[in-house]
């Protein structure tokens, strides 16, 4: 089926070329980091995890979100999502690959990465995270490929794909739960030490991931003959809306506990993020942008008239997506490191080299996603053309 990705329009090739250039630039930047060390990033002794791990955390959420299409379709027989399921699964594939790559570029000694498998350590959450991420990646590739291959040949998908798909549901929940556990079990990091962390992660994932999936579906609908129905879009938009409401609600629960209890260590990170702490507040504008976007996005999606406005819809979804990204792909990880073990504030500012590597990884993910979606669209459109031929 890969041959389907080789034939495309000029616009398709131009898009891939742009991504290839970005990947090359990212790779060059990574070579620099590899030879010099992580000193080329903005990370420090006090902020040992920066945007790389934050992107990893965010993308695991995007990957988990495919399940919001799979559950209605497979468990509740909501057939309108039929065409979207494979888009969700392939989005998950691209997102998991990016997530794993972000962990890889973050390693100080990447050549030793297989030590994680050579010395399996069940008491380390990172070990479990790698297990569930690997399994989820594999399951999604296998399902997507098998279902699409059957479709190409005009057969219904084999029965075992259904079993695997059902299995992918708890796996999707587990990848984000385990990722939350990386943070939620650390004594002395008050901002992360919260029982609601995994729930908050999932809520944010089920808002940001499907939001991205709808945006991608709308783009595909606009530029190709592959049409996702309005019914499917509207149903998924509702999921995004309620997941985002849950996400904001969970966040407000954190705010209440921290500030009503008035325990300084539980307030410090939130203060740092939203008003600044000890004169440091680089993230303050970003966090308020996130807050405004979150509320604006929810309002636009909650009012039925605004939600059904297809011109406004992409704006609302981008607002939700960016809000989630700022919350989890920036604030959550960086805020947790403030203050440090001595009550001091150390700021983190990513370097240009670090940002280029991040761009490179995202470009690689988009490249993979483009190829996968191209194959899906090619298979579907060819089939439909043949169907219409036989009809007439």
């Amino acid at each position, binding site marked *: 089926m890969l041959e389907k990705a080789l034939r495309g329009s000029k616009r398709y090739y131009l898009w891939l070329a742009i991504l290839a250039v970005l990947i090359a630039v990212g790779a060059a930047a990574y070579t620099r980091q590899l030879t010099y060390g992580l*000193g080329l990033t903005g990370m420090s002794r006090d902020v*040992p995890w920066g945007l790389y791990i934050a992107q990893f955390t965010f993308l695991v959420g995007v990957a988990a979100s495919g399940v919001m299409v799979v559950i209605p379709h497979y468990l509740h027989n909501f057939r309108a999502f039929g065409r979207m399921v494979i888009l969700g699964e392939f989005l998950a594939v691209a997102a998991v690959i990016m997530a794993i790559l972000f962990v890889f570029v973050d390693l100080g000694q990447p050549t030793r990465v297989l030590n994680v498998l050579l010395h399996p350590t069940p008491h380390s959450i990172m070990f479990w995270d790698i297990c569930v991420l690997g399994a989820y990646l594999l399951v999604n590739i296998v399902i997507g490929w098998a279902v699409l291959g059957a479709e190409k040949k005009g057969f219904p998908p084999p029965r075992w794909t259904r079993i695997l798909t059902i299995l992918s549901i708890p796996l999707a929940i587990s990848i984000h739960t385990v990722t939350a556990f990386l943070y939620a079990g650390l004594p002395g990091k008050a901002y992360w030490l919260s029982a609601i962390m995994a729930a908050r992660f999932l809520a944010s994932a089920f808002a940001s991931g499907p939001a991205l999936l709808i945006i991608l579906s709308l783009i595909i609908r606009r530029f190709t003959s592959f049409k996702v129905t309005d019914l499917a879009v509207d149903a998924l938009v509702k999921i995004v809306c309620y997941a985002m409401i849950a996400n904001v609600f969970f966040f407000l629960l954190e705010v209440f506990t921290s500030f009503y209890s008035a325990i300084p260590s539980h307030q410090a990170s939130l203060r740092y993020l939203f008003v600044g702490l000890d004169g440091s507040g680089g993230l303050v504008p970003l966090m308020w942008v996130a807050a405004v976007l979150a509320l604006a996005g929810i309002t636009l999606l909650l009012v039925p008239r605004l939600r059904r406005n297809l011109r406004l819809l992409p704006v609302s979804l981008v607002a939700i997506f960016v809000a989630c990204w700022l919350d989890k792909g920036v604030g959550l990880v960086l805020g947790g490191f403030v203050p440090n073990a001595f009550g001091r504030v150390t700021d983190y500012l990513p370097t240009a080299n670090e940002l280029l590597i991040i761009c490179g990884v995202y470009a690689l993910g988009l490249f993979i996603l483009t190829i996968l979606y191209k194959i899906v669209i090619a298979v579907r459109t060819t089939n439909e053309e043949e169907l219409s031929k036989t009809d007439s």
Partner: protein
Amino acid sequence: MSELRRTQKDIKGTYVTKGTVPFVTYVPFMSLERREFIRQGFAAGLLGLGALGSLGALGTLVGCSKVAAPAATAPAATTATAAPAAPAAQRWGLVIDPALLVKTQAFNAVAQACHSHHNVPQISDPKTEVKWIWQDDFAHCFEEMDSAYLPAALRELQFPVLCNHCENPVCVRVCPTQATFKRDDGIVDMDYHRCIGCRFCMTSCPYGARSLNFCDPQPYIAQVDPGYPTRMRGVVEKCNFCVERLAQGLPPHCVEASQGAILYGDLDDPASEVRQALAGSLSIRRRPELGTEPSVYYLLRGAESPTDAPKGGEPHA
């Protein structure tokens, strides 16, 4: 399991001693790992335990520590005979008298001894510096005990801070490769050759005791001490309680340089010097509420009072 780990270390060569001379001597970097690997093989062969060693490694690989354990105890015994002077302990601990350290003005010597003998690079940028032991004041070391009306003497007192060698070390719990591990004697040690540099340990340590080599440390080492291996970029490091010294029956560098202000010994032995010191004075530990059970204690032997008078008895003013 940790017994096995410890003895694997011994085979590796880092702590194996031959007489009083450290078995591993400094080799210019790049060739260090290979050289050490050859030595490791040599050491294992010399002890006639090569086969047993690989059997043990196989046991670890399949997660069957029971198979590995007997193979591992043999080199442990051999090491013990190689360094007969090495004292054993159930749980090594440090007791620091910060006021005495200020009086003797020995802290700089302490840090110097620790950092120079362990080849800790001297990087001036606080964001990327590597440090095993340093000082901070009461308000920052013991934030939760801070108050506006502390005696000035205590407020101004500097406390040496280092790895706490916790009884329940979070860093060991989170490390995905067991590069950080707890030995049977309570010391939290590291295998710099296994560390993948993920920095989960740095993130999880509630004491900020860990440093990453953000770049190649070699240019920042004034003079390499051949008694301890140097590290390479991308790995984490921290205080190792001078395990290489303990194996030779010597006290840790900080203890030696402190002029009596830092004591070391077995916290599980009521007769030990550290336990005697703890029995005679109020002592505090950093963030004990987290349940990590630090093994580093700070004596407040009258430090809270402006006069030096009260020693031993009721420490509260």
